[in-house]
């Protein structure tokens, strides 16, 4: 009889232990995925800001009069580099995307610029990094969703409280980014 009691107690303890370890690891994995997703965004943001000065120089050579457009691009780039939180960085990046869209739209008016291979290559590469950023952001949000589900669903929520795990915030995109920028052609 005593043996049976011990077996039951032992079984319950072992089961609890397995639960504790499993949930601990599950949360760590989910949280690491978010951090890794952010690191990916960060790398691409850096790459993007590195490309801008080159682009500005190239455009200047052909379209001197577009000072305001170029200044907006430079300003947005500085904002991306100075961002302190992920959401701040994303907001600044959205600004940069908008400024670049205007720049590329304006460049349509300069056939020589459009024919410049360096410009074309920069344009392709900037689009490339922008796509990477938006997919990385999507992956980031998917990761946050999975993490939040893990810590909010039962019985995970019990362990989440124990381990001090709190819900994380997704990166939001302003509606404006989806809209096509309006550019007035002279």
């Amino acid at each position: 009889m005593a043996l049976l009691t011990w077996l039951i107690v032992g079984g319950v303890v072992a089961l609890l232990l397995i639960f504790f370890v499993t949930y601990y690891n599950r949360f760590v994995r989910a949280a690491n995925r978010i951090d890794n997703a952010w690191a990916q965004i960060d790398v691409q943001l850096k790459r993007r800001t590195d490309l801008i000065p080159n682009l500005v120089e190239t455009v200047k050579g052909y379209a001197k009069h577009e000072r305001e457009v170029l200044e907006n691009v430079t300003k947005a780039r500085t904002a991306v580099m100075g961002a302190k939180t992920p959401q701040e960085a994303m907001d600044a990046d959205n600004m940069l995307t908008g400024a670049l869209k205007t720049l590329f739209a304006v460049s349509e008016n300069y056939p020589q610029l459009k024919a410049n291979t360096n410009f074309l290559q920069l344009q392709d590469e900037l689009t490339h990094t922008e796509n990477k950023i938006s997919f990385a952001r999507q992956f980031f949000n998917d990761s946050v969703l999975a993490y939040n589900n893990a810590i909010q669903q039962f019985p995970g929520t019990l362990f989440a409280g124990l381990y001090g795990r709190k819900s994380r915030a997704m990166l939001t995109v302003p509606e404006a980014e989806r809209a096509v920028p309006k550019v007035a052609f002279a």
Partner: protein
Amino acid sequence: MAEPLLLDEQIRANKRRTVVIVALMLLILGLVVAAAGLLLGLPLPIAFVFAGVAALIYFLISAGSGVPAVLRATQAREPNVSVREEKLLVYRVEELAIAAGLPKPRVYIQDSKDINAFAAGRSPKEAIVCVTTGALAQLNQEELEGVLAHELSHVKNYDVRLATYTIAVVGIIAILSEIVFRVMWYGGRHGGGGRGRGGGPAQLIMIVLAVALLILAPLISRMVYLAMSRRREYLADASGAYMTRNPEGLASALEKILHDLPDDPKGSKTVAALYIANPWKRALRDSVWSTHPPLERRIQLLRGPGAGVEPRRRLIDAA
């Protein structure tokens, strides 16, 4: 947010069905082995050991269907990054790999006028994506993205591995029933063979059932495999649409494929199931014998409400 969730549920439903199909395959294999054992007069454990050894040999042989073999069969080449179209292709693949959370797959190009693409590799690490020059020439970037997302979904869902294993099971079943019939044929001519123990009507019924099973199993297993292949195509469409958040890109690409009749197929027919659409023929109706669901149906699902939602179907979509 409602739409991605819908897709999400469809992806899960598709995965559940695949599990059922694989279980069914294994069940058929088990029954075939048991029937073979009965007809050849072998005790069950010995029959299963024999089948296990045969399966192992078959898997080792099918290792030859790996990435290098596929590349050779399809005459794929590496992209030339000084050509803008091919450079942009590499860019698009890199971007979507981030969306899928996969390591960057290697990119290949197949020189063919047809619009097509395929993925190969049994794990995301060794995965490759190949696109025809016809696709590069005729699809815009959005459509190309849709096609690539479909291919990366195959990689992410381990479809190539699944296909390799299920084809192996289909092959083993075919070989087993072939062996049993040959042995019985010769055994019969040499008088009795291994099962001359007599027995009542129950024994006779069992033997008749076993023979029927061995005749039908190769056909059924092939049908089940093809049903699974079509299911995985729907799944790749749905998860590809989820990946790009843009079902229209893939739908529009499939529409172009629909109107671009295949006239320049390269490679071997054994890799037909790998492609986004069968390079040799286009299924017009939902046939039990096709590797892919009809394009019209796929387009309709991608454009329907809750994009990517598949119809309610029976397990084996027999006519």
